[in-house]
């Protein structure tokens, strides 16, 4: 029912290449030139780089991580700059808010700039608070850019195999796969319901907005339930006996990529050690 219509909608959106259309990230990952790098290696790279960046007491290492990750995403993974920038606005918004609060609220060290005092409480920037704010911002960026590198180069389908290799419980992986598949179906449903509501004047006043939105969510819940039953029926019709296969991936020469990743991570550890010593 209306399957073609969802698809049509989402296709249209993808042409506009905004991160707010549901399958842009998925598209990027599937057509990524780095897709052939084994998913497990990219996952290790992402997690290790994030952990090392967070361990660093100085901003230089996280700064190095996010600069290299941005470089890798833009030049190696060939992500269009506009999409990458719009992706970055999300951590930028959160990171900056947090950093601003830290900048004024934490203290210690030498005062750089004292703005005003409320009831004996100084609103000021000190060298320590500046350092902390910068450090938090750099760490946030390092973590987010590493995660984005994974996101834009690795289709979710190839991560299922990694979960399997990590001996996660089969039930957990099966659920993850079903959830991944149906996220897109339900986004389509939500777009359809939303369109139907807007067409008939929903969301025009605040009161309308609340009632229309509550209708959308409750409808979506019911549809989810029905879809769940339909899937169960369909699985049983195909003799479901507890087996779901994991998607296979062809990967390139894994030793080569492993060596590059190992070299990069070693470099990070060396920088970390230098920071600790100096």
């Amino acid at each position, binding site marked *: *029912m209306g399957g*073609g219509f969802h698809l049509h909608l989402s296709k249209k959106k993808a042409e506009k290449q905004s991160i707010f259309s549901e399958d842009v990230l*998925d598209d990027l990952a599937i057509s990524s030139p780095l897709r052939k790098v084994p998913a497990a290696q990219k996952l290790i790279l992402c997690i290790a780089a994030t952990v090392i960046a967070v361990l660093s007491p100085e901003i230089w290492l996280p700064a190095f991580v996010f600069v290299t990750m941005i470089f890798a995403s833009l030049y190696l993974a060939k992500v269009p700059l506009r999409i990458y920038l719009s992706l970055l606005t999300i951590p930028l918004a959160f990171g900056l808010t947090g950093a601003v609060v830290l900048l004024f609220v934490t203290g210690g060290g030498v005062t750089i700039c004292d703005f005003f005092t409320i009831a004996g409480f100084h609103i000021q920037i000190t060298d320590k608070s500046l350092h902390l704010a910068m450090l938090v911002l750099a760490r946030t960026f390092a973590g987010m850019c590493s995660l984005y590198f994974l996101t834009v180069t690795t289709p979710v389908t190839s991560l299922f195999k990694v979960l399997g290799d990590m001996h996660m419980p089969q039930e957990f992986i099966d659920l993850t796969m079903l959830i991944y598949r149906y996220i897109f179906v339900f986004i389509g449903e939500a777009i359809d319901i939303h369109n139907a509501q807007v067409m008939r004047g929903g969301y025009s006043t605040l009161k309308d907005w609340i009632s229309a939105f509550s209708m959308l969510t409750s409808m979506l819940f019911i549809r989810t339930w029905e879809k769940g039953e339909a*899937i169960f029926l369909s699985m049983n*019709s*195909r*003799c*479901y006996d507890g087996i*779901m*296969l994991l998607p296979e991936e062809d990967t390139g020469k894994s030793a080569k990529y492993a060596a590059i990743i190992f070299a990069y991570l070693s470099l990070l550890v060396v920088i970390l050690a230098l920071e600790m010593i100096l």
Partner: protein
Amino acid sequence: MSDILEFENVTFAYAGRPPSLNDVSFKIERGKKLAIVGPNGAGKTTLLLMCNGTLQPDSGEVRVNGEHIHYDKAGLRKVRSKVGLVFQNSDSQIFAPSVYTDVAFGPANLHLDAAEIESRVHDAIFAVGLSGYEKRPPHHLSGGEKKRVAIAGILAMKPDILVADEPTASLDPATAAEIMDLLDELHEDGTTIILSTHDVELAYSWADEVLLLAGGKLLHHGTTEEVFTDDDLMLKARLTAPALLNLYTELVKHEILPDNRPPKGVPEMMQLIEGSFEGNIGTIYTADTDKYDEESLRALVAEKNCNKGAMGTRSKKLCFTAGISLDYTYGVIDKAMLAALLGQDTLILTCGGMLDRVAYRVKMFEEAGGTAIKVVRI
């Protein structure tokens, strides 16, 4: 021929509702193409869900290959490996994250060994013409492609009967025609096919037999001509006759055409109107595309230099890659016959069992009093 599916006095009601199926009995022979036709709410889907044991009749019995269905785990597994069900909504049917894993779902759950799973999945994906799509996630497929994946998922289980619930619903006409072509191909390979529809045109042109259902009752089980020319039946089932038959019955009333010869297709209608065709009758050439590569196929097409049509996913794909532009891509045999009646030759590029289908359809036309058309296999 043996009966592959049998319903005996089947009655079924969903809890707290009037019966959805009321004392339904019929038998289907192996190798038939059956359309279950009826208006919305006639009980079509309920009937289909009974074929693979999803629903259990309140009274009466369903038999597959002459054995009744045992409604326990082992029995249901057995019947579901014989009867494959393609749901109306492909999004409910395709639940795995990629085409390959979805098609492999059935064979894997039948506990086949890895090599067998791989070969079956490969064959099924090839048969529906989606080779190269193995790694795609389903939300990157069009409506028609999803339907093909859904069919491939059932094919990989090698069922004796393929049951499809409204296979062409919400597909555009060309895609719908391609799906029907695909079902014909599978039928040629020996699968019995049952589909439900309220599209009388589709049922009329495609099916051997029709099961007319309305209000949970079986109104009639017979040949398509029998069912669709009976005005009373059509009225009871809230259906309209196919346009071709409508025209025919009107022409009969005006005594322009003879009674009792309802046309199966447009060529038969032409024959009825024209009486007999004088002069030059064209030839239908058929070529097995499995024996050609792109180069030799282009050479063949250039040599024949006549109307060209292709049937079957494999053949169409080869024509596409060879850059051959086709005059007919669906309803190919009928169009070739009409061209022949105009004195033109047609080359039909196809493969496998579809080759025999061309000869069979032309013979059928001749037996119904049509002009003899020569079919030459190259």
